[in-house]
């Protein structure tokens, strides 16, 4: 049996690695077109691509608008994007679990669109168990 790494340590290290990949290592990624883009160019339908409605956004194309330095603009966009993914996914998972714990309540036909997930500030906290405890208080009070 190998030595056990605490769950909290594991999550913190994993998150640090992810942020390092998004914020620093991403600068060294290949900038060649990916498989689909390449095939589209070769087959001759690359020009049918339309610009995304979000193409003028502050983080569009993995570059923070207004930041001149390539490394900083890309790394910052990666970190902000990764933080958004973390917050949304933890929030969504939290909602799925909370909905499951309320038995007898008719399922309110939740939208499958993850965009509707409320951005619970605590969702950015990687320690999921603590939210559950924090949420149970007011819920129990309501019953």
């Amino acid at each position, binding site marked *: 049996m*190998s030595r056990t*790494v605490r*769950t909290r340590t*594991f*999550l913190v290290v*994993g*998150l640090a*690695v*992810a942020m390092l*990949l*998004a914020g620093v*290592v*991403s600068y060294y*990624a*290949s*900038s*060649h*077109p*990916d*498989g*689909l883009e*390449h*095939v*589209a160019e070769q*087959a*001759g*339908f690359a020009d*049918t*691509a339309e610009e*995304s*409605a*979000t*193409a003028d*956004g502050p*983080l*569009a*194309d*993995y570059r923070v608008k207004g930041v001149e330095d390539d490394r900083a603009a890309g790394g910052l966009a*990666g970190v902000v*994007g*990764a933080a*958004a*993914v*973390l917050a*949304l*996914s*933890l929030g969504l*998972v*939290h909602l*799925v*679990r909370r909905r*499951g714990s309320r038995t007898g309540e008719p399922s309110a036909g939740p939208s*499958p*669109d*993850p*965009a509707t997930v409320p951005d619970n500030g605590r969702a950015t906290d*990687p320690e*999921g*168990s603590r939210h*559950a405890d924090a949420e149970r208080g007011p819920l129990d009070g309501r019953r």
Partner: protein
Amino acid sequence: MHVPDGFLDAPTSVATGVVAAAGVGLALRKARAELDDRTAPMAGLVATFVFATQMLNFPVGLGTSGHLLGGALAAVLVGPWTGILSVSVVLLVQALLLADGGITALGTNITLMSLVGLVVGWLVFRGLQRVLPKRVGLVPVLAAAGAFVSVPAAALAFTGLYAVGGTAPIPLDTLAAAMLGWHTLIGVGEAVITGLVVGSVVAVRPDLVYGARPALAVRTLEIRSDAGASA
């Protein structure tokens, strides 16, 4: 493999939007059974890790690159239903914040990467796990096999969608051959990354790997029976 707006016509995009909504809706119901205090934070970590790794395009042949899709990786680490939610969040954030993948193509991208790629990767993993010895050490290898198949599967699904609703008249056999060829190569990268990441987690905390649970259960039984035999 993020599909931009304009590649597929409106009816096809609406159809994939419906498929994506149905798939994510089902995952919202089913993920509940996979989620506990240990797996819930893992779902957030896995989504963040897939997002970060998708930024790391690796070269494939001359002038082309590929990046991890992450479906098989997510499914093996946190379970298929939770994995669908994790990868869908990644695709949503990419489309909305980073203009990576079109807005009208979001349903297509969720269908291709979060549903087809992930489900195929998971089924290959589970199928192999069923017929092979249940060893914890095999889990990263099986995950890599699932990952390898998942990429050409998603590429083939795109070809199918393009055959139905592509906006340019492209010969289907040419498109299928090109998509399959390049994405089989990218699948090798997908397999290597998935194998390494799952292997790392299995080495440190095998109990945090959803796909390792059957093998861990067998190992516990063996330890118990060994203890019983020596007693």
